[in-house]
């Protein structure tokens, strides 16, 4: 085990970090201002998928949670539960990709843990990351501050991660295979921050959230509950890519309910949507950002969708797992 940790794991995170000699705890320097702290576990199968792998996903997942809380990630811990029999080169590849992701996000991996469990008691590899970030003022106001007329923005085409995983896991043989959107959201958030300066330091962003489990729909429902209004989106304005739409149609799934891993929802004050979209489009990660709807006075449904023909319908959260239809 020591050989695994010192020979395989530590060298990949060793660049001037506290991890070089493994102490029991990383000692972190003092930081001014508020801190944000988050944790997330990753159990994705397969471990590798078009556009990413579990290592990159685990780092960006935690980084993005910090980013949408208005924080800059500083330190990350990374814990591994390894199923006996996982080939070492596979582990090495995943660790390298986690290290590269941390570097891209400007964060250091400073602590970790490794456990090995018997074969068939885990699915290859489970990864847990926790992250600490420094909150940059001003932080988003929070979804409870959403008002009627506020505008809803999505930072890019939706549903890419969930479809990429499903197609890879079930070997559906789509060619080319759909790619995950797994990406770091720090730059899009920074673009918004810069744009806020253009507004004389006034914060126009009410809320930000990466649309992971349950997709855009889940975030909309959470926000609707927080603010007590109805969040309404227009189907024809929601960005999707042709391959994701095609695969979702084929599988009987709604891209609005499918997980993203590098795409976020942003709510901004009424009248500032266009400026926010312009700012987001400065980042390559969010170059397809679009206004997709607005906050309305609370109707019967917390979240609604306007279809292309004009009818307005409730938009429900997905219940249970994604079960594809059969014909």
């Amino acid at each position: 085990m020591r050989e695994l940790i010192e020979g395989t794991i530590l060298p990949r995170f060793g660049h001037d970090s506290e991890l070089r000699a493994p102490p029991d705890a990383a000692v972190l320097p003092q930081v001014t201002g508020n801190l944000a702290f988050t944790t997330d576990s990753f159990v994705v199968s397969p471990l590798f998928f078009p556009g990413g792998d579990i290592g990159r996903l685990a780092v960006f997942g935690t980084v993005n949670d910090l980013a949408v809380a208005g924080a800059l990630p500083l330190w990350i811990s990374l814990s591994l539960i390894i199923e006996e029999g996982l080939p070492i080169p596979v582990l090495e590849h995943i660790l390298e990709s986690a290290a590269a992701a941390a570097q891209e996000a400007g964060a250091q991996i400073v602590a970790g843990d490794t456990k090995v469990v018997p074969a068939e008691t885990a699915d290859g590899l489970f990864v847990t990351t926790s992250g600490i970030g420094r909150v940059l003022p001003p932080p988003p106001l929070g979804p409870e501050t959403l008002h009627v007329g506020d505008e809803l923005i999505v930072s890019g085409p939706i549903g890419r991660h969930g479809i990429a995983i499903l197609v890879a896991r079930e070997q559906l043989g789509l060619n080319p295979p759909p790619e995950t959107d797994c990406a770091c959201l720090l730059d899009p958030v920074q673009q918004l921050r810069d744009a806020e300066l253009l507004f004389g330091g006034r914060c126009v962003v009410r809320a930000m959230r990466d649309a992971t489990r349950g997709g855009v729909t889940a975030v909309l429902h959470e926000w609707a509950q927080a603010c007590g209004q109805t969040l309404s989106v227009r189907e024809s304005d929601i960005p999707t890519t042709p391959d994701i739409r095609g695969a979702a149609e084929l599988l009987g799934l709604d891209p609005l309910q499918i997980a993203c891993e590098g795409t976020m929802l942003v709510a901004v004050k009424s009248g500032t949507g266009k400026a926010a979209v312009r700012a987001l489009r400065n980042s390559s990660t969010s170059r397809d950002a679009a206004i997709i709807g607005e906050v309305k006075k609370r109707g019967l449904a917390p979240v609604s969708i306007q279809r292309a023909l004009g009818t307005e319908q409730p938009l429900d959260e997905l219940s249970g797992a994604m079960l594809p239809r059969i014909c």
Partner: protein
Amino acid sequence: MKHLDEFRDPKLARRLVDEIRRTVSQPRVLMEVCGGQTHSLLRHGIATELNEVVELIHGPGCPVCVTPAEAIDFAQQLALEPNVVLASFGDMLRVPGTSRSLLDVRSRGGHVKIVYSPLDAVDLARHHPDQHVVVFAVGFETTAPTTALAVLQAATLGLKNFSLLVAHVRVLPAMEALMQSPGCRVEGFLAAGHVCTVTGFDEYESFVQRHKTPVAVTGFEPLDLLNGIRECVNQLEANQCEVTNRYARSVRQEGNASAQEIVSQVYEIADTPWRGLGVILKGGYRLHGEFEAFDAALRFETILRRVDDRSNMLTVDEQGSQTGCPAGVCPSDDCRSGEVLRGLIKPVECAAFGTRCTPDSPLGAPMVSAEGACAAYFKYQRTI
């Protein structure tokens, strides 16, 4: 994707809606056969747009809704057997049998595996010779070729640990049964485009002539559906009836000959029970005698008999209650899914709809499935 955007063009759709409204001299009653069409009609707001001029009665074309509760019970029992894996399409998992669903059984340790293609189940059997893989073969003429192909593959590979629980159904006999049922108000049909892609539409000719109802072979996108509706309405207004193909980009008159060939090689037509509709003459398939080694009902006969006995007991109980459902059809007294499946009522007319019966806690199969009429109403037709 180009096809999707083309066939969802709101301007063209609006034009077709207006044209249909202008053409209709009296309210017309049409049935869309397939559950996929039901969902599309409601999702895109077409049913609402045509309100007052065309009433759309939702047909029984939801494969998991019409799979008999007894077949689901049998599947559950198989999944609980040691060394048996039940391979099923995902849609089937949440559908209640007489008392519970395959998902419930899985959470209690039952071996239920979701497959996207029955051929995956053949692979599963090949790689796990110590397990017996049973495919829950449900669905219409659309899925029958794939399960038939799986049997042929298993036979070629000489697999002894592979079988089918056959619950396949055929759509035209069900249309026939509906037309003959008392109180049927249907004046014309939107035939299921996917089914016709396999079967072609020659066999609809005699149906049309006997019942004097137009049949339009129809697709699933808004413009496809409006096209099919316009065709039926035009014929009704002109006092005509014929079969027309409004889904020509997918359907040919003769259908898919190789798929038909595979089906007839493996299956023979049989009288078959449908949930909510009872036994329908020639309403489904069973395996040909030469493939009986792959018939789970024969291979696991003792288990089937045990399940049958239990279901019959439940059926007797239910006969005593005031359900309005055929005996053994509905898992709950409150549920009127049998009437929904026969097009006699709209889901919202059921007292349990949206209150005691929701997709999260369904009383009947149509509230569960992505093709079910109750689920479609719950999803798209609740008041905003």
